[in-house]
């Protein structure tokens, strides 16, 4: 009996360990874990493994790392420092949690009071090239503004949807339904309308060294977009391609920085846009549909072959709604797109726009809303 209770405790601990390691597990899973153990038998580790894996995992990522966690916990003597059940994580998590509430609130307040202080300061900030924002303070303000801008865009997109009232074609089924109350006489007509949907956005941000002055602002901008539009994905590219949507989605800015830093090995190196695009086409092409807007933020200074990006863009374009290329260098006086990759890619992008100030980002609004 006591042994049984001991195993129950072990299971509860394991579920908690899973939660601390980022598995999406609630209280109900705790109860079900006991049932799984009962059903699969606790004596057979293989079956317990299978059962708990199905219960506790909720996506492919979980699926792949479950075995390690399971092994680390249930095989005696293999409990590694990485998965310490009691130490660090919960405390850190709590502190982080507080950070989310407090920190974000403060940041927001600062933002509002900043706006109240006067429009002119903001105005000038909006027109400054990001690379001249030397001090950390104005950099952060610019980042925050970029994020707010992205949120505002969403409101605009949604409003357009609501304004679509009267359709042109009659919705027959609904009309018949409406006429029920008039005894079958179609007094009240119903119209069919084409629903305007939010575009699906895919952002690809060049984080190579040549972009280092700009990339952080764009990461913040994409964070705003990702939080505002649910159907959006962000990728960072340099010599490889990294999916950063989940990292950007974290509510706390500091933690976002941390996780970006974690996945950012190789950032600020060279760029191989063509290969990044190729990888995108291969691994993530399922995310594409006909109302997808593909935004590339890059200066086009590419170290790979110039033909590859163009080739890939042509392939992507066939399946996308629109390709927008934002180039921060375009805002500089006397700049002309002359690099091989840029020249080759130009014919394949629908919009080629500067993106060096907040104002130039604001000018993107019609592009986003007209999909």
């Amino acid at each position, binding site marked *: 009996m006591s042994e049984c209770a001991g195993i129950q405790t072990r299971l509860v601990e394991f579920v908690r360990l899973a939660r601390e390691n980022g598995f999406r597990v609630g209280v109900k899973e705790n109860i079900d874990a006991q*049932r799984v153990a009962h059903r699969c038998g606790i004596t057979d580790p293989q079956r317990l493994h299978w059962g708990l894996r199905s219960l506790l995992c*909720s996506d492919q990522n979980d699926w792949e790392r479950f075995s390690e966690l399971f092994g680390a916990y249930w095989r005696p003597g293999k409990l590694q420092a990485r998965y310490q059940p009691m130490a660090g994580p919960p405390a850190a998590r709590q502190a982080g949690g507080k950070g989310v509430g407090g920190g974000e609130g403060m940041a927001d307040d600062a933002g509002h009071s900043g706006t109240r202080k006067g429009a002119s300061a903001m105005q000038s900030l909006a027109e400054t090239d990001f690379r001249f924002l030397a001090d950390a303070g104005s950099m952060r303000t610019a980042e925050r503004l970029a994020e707010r801008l992205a949120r505002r865009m969403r409101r605009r997109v949604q409003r357009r949807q609501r304004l679509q009232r009267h359709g042109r074609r009659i919705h027959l089924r609904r009309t018949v339904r409406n006429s029920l109350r008039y005894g079958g006489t179609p007094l009240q007509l119903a119209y069919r309308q084409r629903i305007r949907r939010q575009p699906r956005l895919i952002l690809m941000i060049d984080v190579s060294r040549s972009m280092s002055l700009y990339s952080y602002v764009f990461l913040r901008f994409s964070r705003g977009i990702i939080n505002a539009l*649910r159907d959006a994905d962000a990728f960072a590219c340099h010599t490889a391609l990294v999916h950063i949507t989940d990292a950007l989605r974290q509510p706390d800015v500091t933690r976002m920085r941390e996780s970006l830093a974690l996945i950012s090995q190789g950032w600020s190196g060279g760029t191989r846009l063509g290969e990044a695009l190729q990888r995108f086409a291969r691994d993530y092409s399922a995310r594409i549909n006909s109302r997808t807007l593909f935004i590339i933020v890059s200066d086009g200074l590419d170290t790979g072959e110039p033909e590859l990006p163009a080739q890939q863009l042509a392939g992507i374009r066939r399946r996308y709604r629109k390709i927008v290329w934002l180039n921060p260098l375009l805002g500089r006086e006397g700049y002309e797109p002359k690099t091989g990759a840029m020249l080759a890619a130009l014919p394949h992008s629908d919009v080629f726009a500067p993106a060096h100030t907040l104002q130039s980002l604001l000018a993107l609004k019609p592009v986003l809303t007209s999909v």
Partner: protein
Amino acid sequence: MSNEHDIIEFQQQMMQVGYVAERSLAATLVLLTELQRPLLLEGDAGVGKTEVGRVLSKVFDCPLIRLQCYEGLDVNAAVYEWNYQHQLLAIKLLEQSRLSPESAEHQIFSEAYLLKRPLLQAITQAKPPVLLIDEIDRADEEFEAYLLEVLSDFQISVPELGTIEATSRPYVILTSNATRELSDALRRRCLYYYVEYPEFDKELRIVNARLSGIGQQLARQVVAFVQALRRGDLRKKPGIAETLDWAAALLRLKVDSLDENPEAVMDSLVCLLMTREDSEAMTEATVERMVARAV
């Protein structure tokens, strides 16, 4: 302890209806009946996700109700709809009768005029059916939220009729191809299983199970070839269905071994390659090399 026995027995039952399942999948399906949670299946296209639902309904000997999701799927197509034409007809007929307006209304909005769509169908069966919700990622987020509600309460409310309680709890299987991220709430509620491309042995068993007339030699070669193809750099990797198609095609062309009839192999490759780029990449020389390795 009879648990292990359960799992093996379940696996064998699935085998009898023609599905070669991993032990771990069988274990998960046993849990599905035990915990009464929906099961979310993910994996590449063509690994047999949808097939699981079909097989489960055969094993349990119960109806399979399938809801294919698509963009713009709404309540009318997924849950219920009133049969308006019928209702109108009834109104016209009732005009002649001396029924009071209340009872007439009651009659018009009764279950007789309700068209049941898959979700409502699934919860009003006498015996628990298998409800297969295919490609849930194609439906909108709003629908996903609604589905979540139905799957947790197992009741559906129809404004004109009241709440319809479930008479039986269906076994729910959801499949997803990851065209968009599913909500955490849905993921948490479901059991999860990631279906991978089968290993050599398993795929061989599948081919043997489905195509009884195939020779051992050809089956081995076909599977080895397809496995090599999957490891390569293709745009669309061939799934199990494609393997079976190809094997059937070769059987039809009376090929006994891949190396003795190169033209037939080339001709029948259309079963495996699904994009122009892929078929261009597979030149005769490449195919010959791969055949040589597979034999």
